[in-house]
């Protein structure tokens, strides 16, 4: 009995340490297996994403030619390439094109996607078939779609000019869509929206079908018009989905490559090139790997900002 207090005090002394050690040990045990299991994936991601990223950022601070690239002997030039990106007229134009044209494509995709989603949400005859048809453009590879649309917009043999002329717009006889930046952008805009609306439409359709019918009924009973029901009930309820789709579309449309590469190559002075195409051409056509990398890094930073917004949004949703 007499040593009981000693035991207690000894225990008291050890007490704060023991759970600590056990906790660490348990945490390590708990983490070892997952980390081991994740390791192969982490190595692959590090190799496929990390290495090129780091290398590109490094290249963007160097003056590197094809020969230097082979033996890795680029000359460090600091921020000179970035200065060129923002002062050279062609490079700056390509960044502005990316933002302006990309934004236009996002708006176009969202509006058209919404319209199709609302249409599909109505219980109309043949909607199943229509829904399947909507998916098809999405399944066409971007390169093939660009080539097809380039033909549809061909000056002499294209369907678009034929249709416009037959509708009475004789101005479009032999109209060269790709001979001017703005008209080329119209054609490319149609191609991009045509390819990207299915995803938006189907995502929104899924959202629309989860909306509580009672709320919409109640609004209708209270005398809200169709437009008011859409603006005041449907849209606020779909906001999380719309936000995510806007961020997604922005990321896709800002790094657009195939459509521009195929359709804008004949536009005078390459005035319609976007940042992704410019980065490629500066590097692989001109052999200016440093400047090309700088363009790519600027585009990457812009997209990173959007991705952070997206991740934040997902985080908030998980909490909600």
């Amino acid at each position, binding site marked *: 009995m007499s040593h009981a207090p000693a035991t207690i005090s000894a225990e008291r002394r050890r007490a704060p340490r023991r759970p600590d050690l056990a906790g660490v040990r348990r945490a390590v045990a708990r983490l070892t297996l997952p980390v081991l299991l994740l390791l192969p994936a982490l190595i692959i991601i590090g190799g496929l994403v990390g290495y090129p990223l780091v290398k590109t950022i490094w290249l963007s601070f160097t003056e590197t*030619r*094809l*020969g230097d*690239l*082979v033996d890795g002997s680029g000359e460090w030039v600091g921020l000179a390439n970035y200065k060129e990106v923002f002062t050279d007229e062609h490079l700056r134009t390509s960044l502005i094109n990316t933002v302006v044209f990309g934004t236009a494509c996002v708006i176009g995709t969202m509006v058209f996607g919404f319209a199709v989603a609302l249409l599909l949400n109505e219980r109309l005859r043949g909607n199943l078939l229509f829904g399947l048809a909507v998916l098809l453009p999405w399944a066409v590879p971007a*390169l*093939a779609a*660009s*080539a097809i649309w380039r033909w549809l917009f*061909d*000056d*002499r*043999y294209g369907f678009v000019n034929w249709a416009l002329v037959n509708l009475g717009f004789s101005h479009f006889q*032999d*109209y*060269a869509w*790709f*001979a*001017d930046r703005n008209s080329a952008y119209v054609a490319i805009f149609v191609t991009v929206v045509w390819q990207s609306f299915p995803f938006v439409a189907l995502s929104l359709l899924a959202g629309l079908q989860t909306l509580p019918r009672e709320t919409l009924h109640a609004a209708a009973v209270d005398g809200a018009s169709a437009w008011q029901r859409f603006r005041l009930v449907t849209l606020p309820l779909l906001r999380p989905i719309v936000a995510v789709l806007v961020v997604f579309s922005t990321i896709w449309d800002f790094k657009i490559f195939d459509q521009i590469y*195929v359709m804008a*190559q*004949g*536009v*005078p*002075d*390459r005035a319609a090139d976007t940042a992704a195409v410019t980065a490629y*051409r500066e590097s*692989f*056509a*001109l*052999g200016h790997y440093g400047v090309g990398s700088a363009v790519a890094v600027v585009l990457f930073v812009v997209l990173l900002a959007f991705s952070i917004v997206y991740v934040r949004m997902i985080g908030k949703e998980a909490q909600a």
Partner: protein
Amino acid sequence: MKGMRWLAAGALVGALAVAGCGGDDGDNGSAANTGGDGAISGSITTWIMDPGSPKLQEVFNQYAKDFEAEHAGSDVKIEFVPWAQAHDKFTTAIAGGKVPDVAEMGTTWTPEFADQGAFEPVPAAAAGDYVSSLVDAATLDGEVWGKPWYAGARALVYRKDVLKKAGVEPPKTWDELKAAATAIKEKGGGIYPVAFNGLTEHYYLPAIWQAGGEIATQDGASWKAALNSPEGTQAIDFYTSFYKEDLTPKASIGWEEPDAQEAFINGDVAMLIAGGWTYNSIIQTKPELEKNIGTALAPAGPSGKDTAFAGGSHLVVFKESKDVATANAFVDFMLEPENLNKFTSEIGFLPGTTAGIEASGYLDDPVRKPFAEQLLDHSAVYPPSPRWGALEGANIFDGVIQNVMKGKESPEEAAKSLAEQMDQEFAG
């Protein structure tokens, strides 16, 4: 004669549009070069510029089969690369270390990639075996890096029926060309007079020579732009005036050579700057046009010169090839006169070897004679600088010419800015 140059053959691409052309590079392993031992039994990959017709592709595939039959154990894989993508593809292949063993190389690109150390040097050939200017085009720092394969120059191809309808003779000078074009626009029945593209420098750069100017001049080891001159300005003004005066389709501002060829085949343009290879491709695609097609030398400029660009191809062996002996053997095999002529006569180029030219019989064929004459007596080459390929790859000329066509720049401004860009690249 300076180095003779290169690449004529954008037209070969034919109607070929998009080109995923997967360079199957998987088999370039780390095996050491076996150049010394002379065994011809390896597997090699060969990149050939896409001739755009299945018949010609078959000629190349047959080379591979014949070669494999001759050398037991060897395996030759032929891959076709469209001209329009070829420069980018070689650049990425060299940068990534995934090169083919053997490749056809546009003659203006050979010095550029040789300068990067991409090729095996070619053993000295006996003088007179090859067309000497084509050997010069493959020479850098005193060594030869490619074997001449074929060459050609663009002359004038026209529709006899349309010219007759418009009441004009085949034009021999710039003035006659303009007059003929104007007459065809008025009386040709809706056909465009010419196709003067915005993306084909082999159409408009020779106009500088025809005007009496130079594109660049050599100054010791380096080059200096020379097109910022009254002649250069005049050439740009003349070429772009056809677009401004609606004598070429509006869409042609964004056309490459195959687009113009296609328009000619479809009966949308009456006159074309074209080489024998384009002529062959046209009559193969649309045989009924043959009786209505005439050929003539390129129209002469105010200086009296009717110079066209002499282009062609070399065959090169890559340094990183894992079997240099087999690669060299296959190159020599393709250059044997009977093999060479199977291809050149079909495609409409002149062979790059002396023996091949003797066997070809080009000068006896009245329709093809202008193409041969154009190459042999009325042609010149672009500056054989290692930087020229990059200038071409970047299409620095096209954007400026397009701006002049659109009226956004004057011909004087264009000549000045081109000279600046060229000098920047030459100094590079």
